[in-house]
């Protein structure tokens, strides 16, 4: 077997010193990149070169590098998490980019995700949304036996589909309206499907959606870009379910 031919790229990367800086695009060369390197490993190589030259490397978030922690972000060539379906940026490989290509790399952009530095943004709005109701109020020690409430297999599967959300924020980044509906809907769906989520079902929907609005996310207008970029393929049907939950909670509950 012969080693695969190395590739060269031109990067146009958003550089922004801190939250107060205006920011600009800067150009870098990425040379001798293996097509088997991941996109973030390509950025690692560029950064190592920058450090060797004494320049400030490009700041970007990443952690698990296997598509599950949701820490990595970036809009690459106009797509959140770059080209390729059902992948986070860390699972994107350079073989997806032709040799000699120019690649545009930007941070996730939304008022609710204020910039921190370069490609790093602050997604703590998501944590505040979960803190407003994305839980079941059950203290440690007071849980009944796990088999007390039966959950039909298809319902458990559907709840798991929604629970697979990694909270990366690509849905917000990709949405023309910077709406967080898919993220919020994933959690509301998971817990409204399961028996354990029933006692707080109405309050959860109202509180989480209220928090979402207060965080300055946009409104959902059913474009479906969120679903198209979601690394975990969370379905738009969760948003429809959340709409039902909201209407039900607003009109029929005591909340």
């Amino acid at each position, binding site marked *: *077997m012969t080693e695969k031919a190395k590739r060269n790229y031109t990067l146009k990367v958003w550089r922004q010193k801190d939250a107060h800086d205006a920011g600009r695009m800067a150009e870098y060369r990425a040379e001798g990149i*293996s097509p088997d390197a991941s996109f973030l490993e390509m950025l690692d190589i560029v950064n190592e070169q920058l450090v060797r030259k004494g320049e400030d490397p490009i700041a970007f978030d990443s952690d*698990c*590098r296997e598509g599950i922690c949701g*820490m990595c972000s970036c809009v690459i060539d106009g797509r959140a998490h770059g080209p390729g379906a059902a992948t986070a940026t860390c699972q994107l490989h350079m073989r997806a980019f032709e040799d000699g290509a120019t690649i545009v790399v930007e941070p996730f952009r939304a008022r609710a995700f204020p910039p921190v530095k370069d490609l*790093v943004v602050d997604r703590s709005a998501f944590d505040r949304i979960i803190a*407003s109701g994305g839980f079941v109020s059950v203290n440690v020690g007071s849980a*009944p036996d796990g088999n007390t409430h039966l959950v039909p297999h298809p319902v*458990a599967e559907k709840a798991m589909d929604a629970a697979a959300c990694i909270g990366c924020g690509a849905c917000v980044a990709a949405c023309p309206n910077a709406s967080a509906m898919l993220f919020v809907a994933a959690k509301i769906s998971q817990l409204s499907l399961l028996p354990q989520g029933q006692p707080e079902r109405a309050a959860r929907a109202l509180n989480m959606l209220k928090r979402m609005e207060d965080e300055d996310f946009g409104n959902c207008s059913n474009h479906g870009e969120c679903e198209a970029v979601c690394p975990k393929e969370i379905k738009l049907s969760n948003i429809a379910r959340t709409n039902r939950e909201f209407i039900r909670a607003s009109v029929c509950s005591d909340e």
Partner: protein
Amino acid sequence: MKLDSKIPSGPVQQKWDKHRFETKLVNPANKRKYEILVVGTGLAGSSAAAALAELGYHVKVFCIQDSPRRAHSIAAQGGINAAKNYPNDGDSIYRLFYDTVKGGDFRAREANVYRLAQVANNIIDQCVAQGVPFAREYGGTLANRSFGGAQVSRTFYARGQTGQQLLLGAYSSLMRQVGKGSVKMFPRREMLELVVVDGAARGIVCRNLVTGDVESYSGHAVLLCTGGYGQVFYLSTNAIASNCSAAWRAHKHGALFANPCYTQIHPTCIPVSGDYQSKLTLMSESLRNDGRVWVPKKKGDSRSPDTIPEEERDYFLERKYPSFGNLVPRDVASRNAKQMIDEGRGVGDTGLSVYLDFGDAIKRLGESVVREKYGNLFDMYHHITDENPYKVPMRIYPAVHYTMGGLWVDYNLMTTIPGLFCLGEANFSDHGANRLGASALMQGLADGYFIIPYTLGGYLASSKLPKIDLGHAQFKAMETAVAKRAQELLSIKGKRTPGDFHRALGHIMWDKVGMARNKKGLEEALREIPKLREEFWKDVNVTGAGRELNQTLERAGRVADFLELGELMARDALHREESCGGHLREEHQTPDGEAKRDDANFAYVAAWEHKGDDAAHALHKEPLAFEEVHLTQRSYA
């Protein structure tokens, strides 16, 4: 120093009950007067913080990522064990305890393991109640599977994302407390110093990773839930930010570090493809149920696998272990792969992999059955390597996956520094020399949900902890130390990047302190690591400034600590003149290549004390007694 493990007396079944009864309680009204600092938000940290806040304590929680939900517990795939015995197949708390002690190759504490098995059932109940979508049978009951060669089906799972779902459950409980105001969350903070006042842990000093500010926090107790140190090998299945720094700082303040050489190597990872690689990806070991592991019989055989005839292939696991074949335990499979590669029979561009061939399985079962069983793993492999495993054999290589060693803790999970507790993978406690599949998640949550709420209360109720403020000299001293160290790193302005040093350390660790160790290699490592460390402090280049988001500086600080920990790992591995679990000394093997324990001389926990930067570590031994599970030699031949 005399190590007191504080294991309660009495039969193993009654120790925890007895201990809980004898442990002092904190008056409910007094709980709100205590401030607890929790560092790390993986399974152990999130569950501990949530459980303590529910009891009424004031909790401050710190994590290095942008959100507590990102901690690396999230990447655990397989499942979580509990002795529910739902399948009616003969499981019991005692059997789970027995299997775990035996699986740990008799280097774990019986009392701790028994307690772990006891509370495991409560963990499942708690997680179900939180809305964790565990797999279900068609009748709606919880599904179980057999995992990692266990003879009973006791593993609960949520697809291949069990760690994610359990962590998100704990995270949701944590965020509920954040919403109530009983937990204050501090993301993007890295703990860089422990503050010890009058001999007790009373606070931490962090770097705010966004602003670079040095920040102090005081409390009545500090809980380290900072995970394992597998990243010392540079390439591992751990996350990029996983590090040993918080534990190492505590170690330097007097917390003993136990069994640092016990590392677990997972046999079925996707192999390294180049030196740019930042991460190794794990594939479920269930692949070995149908895949056959082989290498060419001839050295340096570079023919493509489909042109190598059957008689020129060496199915080495089947040859050496006829009864277990490809299903031998993790450490055995890993070591044998390494041996083949060391013999020059490795395959792939780099020669650093062995084949895991599904050709026979596809012939026998048909492609559609194989796809149904392993489709997602095959897709993942195809996606990463660009090779289609339905057409060409998979290539696999072992990777560092979990570290059983960690800070020494007593039965209360308290380190040798009063008020400093250590939970989850960061402590050394329950897995001995080898961790069984699906028991890491169990331990993290057991520590956080069901053990620390009792034992921490016992400590607080029986200690006098005067109020201290952040102006205390010890806080000031530690703040200065943190700032000084950052300044030192920034001012070297050498030629090599922190990444260069990390890779160099990783090579030494993998080659000489990896899955098979020998005296010569370890002694070399003990010469090479200090030399590399010296070079690091002369020649590292850290760009930027201290008071800003500076990922190069973060990395440099972590690598500096790995350069010290790596040496201790080698020292521990060298001193342990036996093989056990994940620690294999080539000098100590049975004739058929099995780990050969020396129970007469090494049935103890090796707890190392830091005696100063220029002095050698001192060894303390905690003897291990096996009253319930009788010492036997593992055999898979």
